[in-house]
């Protein structure tokens, strides 16, 4: 179990992680989702004791990481593909890591086989593809057979087969009762892998809920309604926590009421409605909705607006 309490990391006047509190439970895969620069990696480095929090605490199984007597046997982490001296072979890298905890050579071979690195284990890491580097990082994380596993963007650079492998691996590890904490900026991957989701944006926790709740968007459900009296229906439905948007002639989108409530109001007020469609948000939509104000780097979308004329061009 990982518990963060008011965890904060500031670099100068820029706050990368801003007072986050969350709990990662054992026995399930917890996804850590957020756009680039949201503070995912910083949070994970603080869990591993590599970065010191500016404020707040984070513990693993009740104890700060650095105070564990055998850290690699408690928590395994892939923080960064190629957190490796690239002139060393994968085998020697794992052997040196294992030596710190008297982990037997047999286990080194085990994790090499488990991650499919047997053919390249004796080669220098320098020549590894991104996917192979990820596999080596996962092998290193599993070395101490830890109860808690932290993986930062594990599917980054993996081929489709590798993605499926990681997905099955983390589910299996969680089914064994381990704590699995997995970060990604790919919402589609999270939808398939995670049981619970913590969404972070600009250093703040935006959502922390079972993935089912986030997809159905509790309190965020939208319904498409068509009526021949849209103005009157808007007036009837208006209330606190309800937003009604006129999208087209006779087409409304209602947020904050479920279809049954909408139909009831329409019936009570004798308004004809001829379409009532609940809109289920995909995780992707839910995520975009959650993080739309929190994205640090907005893409500049060119919508065909005229480019300002350059005066005195060449």
């Amino acid at each position, binding site marked *: 179990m990982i518990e963060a309490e008011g965890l904060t990391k500031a670099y100068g006047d820029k706050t990368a992680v801003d007072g986050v509190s969350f709990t990662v439970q054992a026995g399930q895969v917890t996804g850590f989702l957020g756009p680039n620069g949201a503070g995912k990696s910083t949070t994970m480095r603080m869990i591993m004791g590599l970065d010191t929090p500016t404020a707040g605490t984070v513990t693993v199984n009740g104890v700060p990481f650095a105070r564990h007597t055998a850290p690699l046997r408690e928590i395994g982490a892939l923080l*960064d593909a190629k957190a490796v001296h690239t002139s060393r072979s994968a085998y020697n*890298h794992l052997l040196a890591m294992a030596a710190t*905890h008297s982990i037997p050579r047999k286990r080194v071979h085990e994790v090499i086989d488990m991650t499919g690195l047997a053919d390249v284990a004796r080669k220098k890491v320098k020549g590894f593809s991104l996917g192979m580097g990820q596999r080596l990082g996962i092998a290193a994380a599993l070395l101490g057979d830890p109860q808690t596993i932290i993986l930062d963007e594990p599917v980054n650079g993996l081929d489709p087969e590798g993605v499926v492998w990681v997905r099955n691996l983390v589910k299996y590890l969680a089914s064994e009762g381990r704590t699995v904490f997995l970060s990604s900026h790919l919402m589609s991957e999270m939808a398939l892998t995670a049981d619970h989701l913590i969404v972070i944006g600009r250093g703040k926790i935006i959502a922390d809920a079972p993935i089912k709740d986030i997809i159905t968007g509790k309190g965020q459900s939208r319904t498409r309604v068509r009526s021949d009296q849209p103005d009157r229906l808007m007036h009837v439905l208006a209330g606190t926590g309800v937003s009604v948007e006129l999208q087209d002639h006779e087409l409304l989108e209602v947020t904050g009421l479920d279809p049954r409530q909408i139909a009831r109001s329409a019936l009570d007020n004798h308004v004809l409605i001829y379409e009532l469609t609940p809109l289920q948000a995909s995780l992707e939509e839910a995520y975009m909705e959650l993080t739309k104000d929190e994205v640090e780097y907005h893409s500049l979308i060119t919508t065909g607006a005229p480019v300002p004329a350059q005066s005195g061009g060449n």
Partner: protein
Amino acid sequence: MSTSTSTQPAAGPGRAAHRNAANPGPGPSFFRVLNSEFIKFRTLLSTLILLVSTAIVVVGFGALSAWGTGQFADQASSDPEAAAAIAAQGGDLAVTVPTSGVAFAQLILGSLGVLLMSSEFTTGMARSTFAAVPKRLPAFIAKLVVVILSAFVVTAVSTYIAGLVAVPILDNFDLKLDLASSQSVKLLLVTSVYVAAVAAIGMALGTMLRNSAGGIMALVGLFFVAPIAFQLIPGDFFEEARKYLPGNTINPLTAVEHVPDTLEVWQAALVLGGWVVVPVVLAMVLLKKRDV
């Protein structure tokens, strides 16, 4: 009554479930970390290249120096002025031949000291290292032990081989070199300790700067540029300060007799010790404090 077994219903039949939480297994004791640092040391080709280069340079300079010394002694026998100059030095010329490559040994092994730590940071290896040893200082001390021991052993062994190569060359010029004499043994040991100290300073610089080029340049600046610069800048202060530069402690340490206007042996030893302890302690404080 304890019902702790029922508090984890999600735990499956895997290994993790029936592990004793209080005793997860062996952790990073100092000797395990030392073993790990030694594995890291011997599994890098660049390390081996630098060690072999040191041996080649030391032995090569020993042989060249033996030949040059012989030539000089030959000329001296026919030139009373040169003979007088040799006599005035009061020492045995041949005895310093095996350690004549020390200036290069210190540069190479000092750079090795820098690289062994700076490469941890430039490659990202540091994240793996300090995740395994989150207290950090055991890993630093273990690496320091590996750096000091390897620099000492490589210098001592290659100096001895340089002596073995020099003996027959000097013999051609009727000069005697006894490698078992107390003077020879003292020179070999003091020089090796000195080079080990330079390597330790290098590692401290690598830890503080976390940058290979920066660390090596700082080392070169301290050992090669500063002594010359201090000599060129006029003024009593720089003339006096020059004696306290780490690279200028080797001469008083290896002198047969005390040369006027240089440090005493004990002073030189203290100065060199200070040049090791201060950067090493500073590096440890910074390593403990900074983010990896």
